[in-house]
């Protein structure tokens, strides 16, 4: 532990505070709950191991999002494809088996399939802004690209998502 102990404790608390949002981002990036939790776990481990690379005065959630995005891109590259082959209907076990739970899982599966059609960098920009509520500026800082790039990535993402959701013809299909 040594001299870095106090800093490490602060970092752990800060990570803990943003963990639910990081998890949601990871689930949406990875395409299903199990891979999403793995991605969250890897992201946190990498952050703790490389705490010295965190720039003080910047947002810890932005840093974690960037780590998660890069890990997911590496993972997808390693697999030689985008998205996931896991059956999302099985992979998302969100709530109980009541009617609402089934509906939610079906809906999650549908939107996850649509997101799987979107390249990782576009998916990350879209999720940070639309789901996590970051501004273009904040998303640009998190992903370390210009604001204009965020805008066009989100526009492309929305185009692909619309094609995918339109093709599926709604969740009752």
């Amino acid at each position, binding site marked *: 532990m040594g001299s870095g102990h106090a800093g490490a*404790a602060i970092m752990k*608390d800060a990570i*803990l505070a943003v963990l639910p949002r990081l998890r949601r981002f990871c689930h949406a990036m990875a395409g299903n709950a199990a891979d999403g939790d793995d991605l969250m776990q890897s992201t946190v481990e990498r952050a703790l191991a490389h705490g010295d690379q965190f720039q003080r005065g910047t947002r810890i959630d932005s840093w974690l999002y960037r780590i998660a995005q890069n890990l997911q891109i590496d993972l997808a590259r390693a697999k030689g494809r985008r998205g996931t082959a896991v059956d999302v209907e099985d992979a998302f076990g969100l709530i109980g088996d009541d009617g609402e739970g089934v509906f*939610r899982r079906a809906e999650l599966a549908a939107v996850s399939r649509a997101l799987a059609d979107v390249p990782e960098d576009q998916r990350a920009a879209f999720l940070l802004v639309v789901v996590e509520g970051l501004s273009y500026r904040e998303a640009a800082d998190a992903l370390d690209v210009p604001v204009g790039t965020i*805008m066009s990535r989100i526009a492309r993402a929305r185009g692909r998502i619309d094609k995918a959701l339109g093709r599926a013809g709604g969740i009752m299909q």
Partner: protein
Amino acid sequence: MISDDEDKLAAFLDGQMDDAEMAAFEARLASEPALAARAETWQANDRRIVDAFAPVADMPLPADLLAKLKTTPSPVPAANDNAPWWRRHAVPLGGALAASLVALAMLAPNPDAGGQKDLAFALETGRSLTPVQLADGSTITPTMTVRAADGRFCREFQSGETLGLACRKDGRWSVEAQAKGSGPAGQGDLAVAGGADASALADAYAKLGASDPLGAAEEGQLISKKWSAE
């Protein structure tokens, strides 16, 4: 076919235009049905995705990861007792308190606001779990928002080792309860100290007849509407 129009539409939907750009784009939407239809579809798709993933941030976090991130050795509260939510917090815990709090509220970007940066400013404008830097250099973190039985909105907050509960009435925030921690010195800024504190607040919560914590969306709306429930 990515066009300049699609970039603009994205910026419009994400609220990233200035007033003049917005007015110009709205005029185009009114006169170009195809563009308006695409705006509607994109917005509906966004909504579906946001709604589908919203519950993920409220799911209980994996215990092994929480254990890894816990900074103070302390007993972990039972996950599924039936006590009121505020009593579930009233156990001696360190990082675990943060853990149970974050399960109840989502983080949102900190609104960049000016004015006098004091406790009331932090409570008035800060999203839960987002630290607000005050004028005097200290940091206040609102941790959650509840509604008291008398209709007032109340917020728990944390500053260093101090936990507090403040309620809003007629545009002013008053601190209803406060508890000083006695944690080991040198612990991280964000760490919360011992059990007496949380139970002190629990009494205050009980007295207020506090509701379950409000969700992030509801809290965000209240903040943007300056805490007017209408």
